[in-house]
């Protein structure tokens, strides 16, 4: 197939990089939520112990 024109190819390239970025952002958000939950539970434990 001949090379796609820039305006059409741009959509595919942007799509590929957005997929990559979305995966990383979602992954970091999930791990971040886990760490926030651990922090919350730890704070509750310390408060209960005092």
């Amino acid at each position, binding site marked *: *197939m001949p*090379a*796609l024109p*820039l305006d059409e*190819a*741009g959509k*595919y*390239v942007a*799509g*590929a*990089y957005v*997929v*990559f970025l979305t*995966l*990383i952002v979602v*992954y*970091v958000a999930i*791990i971040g939520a*886990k*760490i926030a939950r*651990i922090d919350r*539970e*730890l704070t509750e*434990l310390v408060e209960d*112990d005092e």
Partner: protein
Amino acid sequence: MYSKGFRSLALATVVTLATALTLVFFYAPLDADQGFIQKIFYVHVPMAIVALGGFVAGGVMAIRHLRSGDPSWDVRSYVAIHLSIILGVGVLATGAIWAKASWGHWWVWDEPVLVSFLVVFLLYCVYYPLRFSIEDPGRQARYSSVFAIAAGAFVPLNFIAVRLAEAYTHPRVLSQTGGSLPGEMRLTFLVSLLAMTLLFVTLWKLELTAKHAAMQLRRLKRRLAEREVVTT
């Protein structure tokens, strides 16, 4: 335990990722054949290489677990495989986008590299049900390690078989003799590969830190509960 040197690693990852993106869009020349669409190569191929490397690394860590009996190696192996599967999703998605733009189809079944990656990906999808169907932690770790070693050995064998296959329709830009990448493209690719590797290691350490903190918290809760039982 796992957070040592994390900040500098994360910083190096961000800097390398930013450098890689700058090189991809402002330095690397347009491909004479594919044009702008070839820019997908710089995210798709490093992601595939790092994902496959992660699967093999998971197998090596599993060997260390079986040899030492140290459960922390099982956790390391699990996180490496888990991250590689996530990257594998990215590889399949970006590969499908590239295939659609280049060949006009989202997927082609007569392309050995694509299909072999799918086979490896589906093989590793079995890891989760295998691991979480076993309740006893010791057995879970042992069985998962055996799977990780067997599957980790399958990864290079699978790709050697593909290389030996006769039908070469996938663009072969990398080879033992240096491939067909010109200098600027090669530098951009190597920086992208380094960025992806650093990203993998950073996220691996991040998840290990979170898992370690969760385990420590559970241990602390158990101790506090035991202390309460003793005092009452």
